[in-house]
């Protein structure tokens, strides 16, 4: 018995779907949208902290694609990077207009219920759901230029080269911002841990040595 060679059923590329979409193929548009919308929506949500803004941004990103307003050039990068680039500009515009539903810098200090368990290291909290929520809020509280690299590179797993294209900066800048962003996150998480009631109540009573 001879086996037929398996021909992998590769998904159509973004560029292929885009070409079909531009010739009026609704199915191609739906496929492209479903493939890319979640990452764009999450990016906008992480960046703005607002579901309303994230929804608006996602809609505007794909409307721009439908209307061919921004002129995607496959020679200059991927469609995914191009969509992230539009989303980034739109998020910044929304935030500048003050349409974001949360105050980015203060919301992270909000009163999420805190566990009273005290760990030797605050980062051990990151392994539970509450810890992940704290981390999300800490990301949201980062200054915009650090927040966007963390969201792109650490959360959406965009490679550094593509992130550099999205952000319009050299790849070295992406690396250094990422490094700085992680240091800021550690700092914020440590500060948060030290403000916890369980920790704050432990006042030093004297030096033993």
């Amino acid at each position: 018995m001879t086996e037929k060679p398996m021909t992998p059923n590769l998904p159509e590329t973004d560029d292929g779907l885009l070409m079909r979409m531009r010739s009026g193929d609704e199915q191609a548009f739906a496929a492209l949208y479903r493939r890319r919308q979640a990452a764009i929506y999450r990016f906008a949500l992480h960046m703005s902290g607002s579901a309303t803004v994230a929804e608006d941004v996602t809609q505007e990103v794909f409307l721009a694609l439908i209307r061919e307003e921004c002129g995607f050039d496959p020679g200059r990068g991927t469609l995914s990077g191009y969509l992230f680039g539009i989303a980034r500009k739109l998020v910044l515009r929304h935030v500048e207009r003050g349409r974001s539903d949360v105050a980015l810098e203060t919301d992270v200090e909000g009163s999420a219920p805190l566990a009273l368990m005290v760990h030797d290291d605050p980062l051990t909290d990151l392994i539970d759901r509450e810890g992940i929520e704290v981390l999300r809020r800490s990301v949201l509280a980062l200054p915009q230029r650090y927040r966007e690299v963390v969201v792109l590179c650490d959360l959406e797993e965009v490679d550094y080269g593509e992130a550099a294209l999205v952000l319009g900066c050299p790849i070295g800048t992406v690396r250094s911002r990422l490094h700085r962003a992680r240091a800021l996150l550690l700092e914020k998480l440590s500060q948060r841990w030290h403000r916890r009631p369980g920790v704050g109540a432990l006042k030093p009573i004297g030096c033993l040595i």
Partner: protein
Amino acid sequence: MNCQEFWNTMPELAREAEDGHFEHVRECPACAALLNRQRTLASGLRMLAADWRPVEAAARVESRLTAAFLGQTGLAMRRPPARWWVPVATWAAAAAAVVALAMFLARDRPVVPAHRTTSSRVQLAAVEPPADLESPGDFSDADADFIPMPNAARIEPNEDLNLVRVEVPRSAMIALGYAVSEDRASEPVEAEVVLGADGLARAVRFFE
């Protein structure tokens, strides 16, 4: 490798660095502790990413965008596309007009006495339409320079007329009473031909 050099070459925590990189960590407890914290942070970020993986835009966004896409596509369909057949049809109509004009002139060509001239330039007489021709009578003053074609059908009121600009041999002017030198008879001259609804030439005017 000192602490600064170590961190300068270790920005990508998710990646396993080469063995040589960790020699410094083995010797430096402070960097080892920080590296450990950074790795824990990276792990937390991966968990956050995984936790958010199912998050996506509401279904209504897709509905709105699909409507917008269909609207845009509909507009594009209604918008006059790059109609390749327009120039083809224009040239076909022009060619048909030339043929019609040529056939007409060939059929009704009056006997023109041989007119030799030493002048090489075209002698365009200020001709009047031949007196025996029936004037269509439907041309306005602005159309007064149109010469009705001999024996052409009368233009009916409200008849759909087409005006076609063509290039014909200068010799075609002879049939309408113009004097044309023989040596330039084959040169082209631009003309506008009024075509009736039946596609036949009704009147013509020439442009020098």
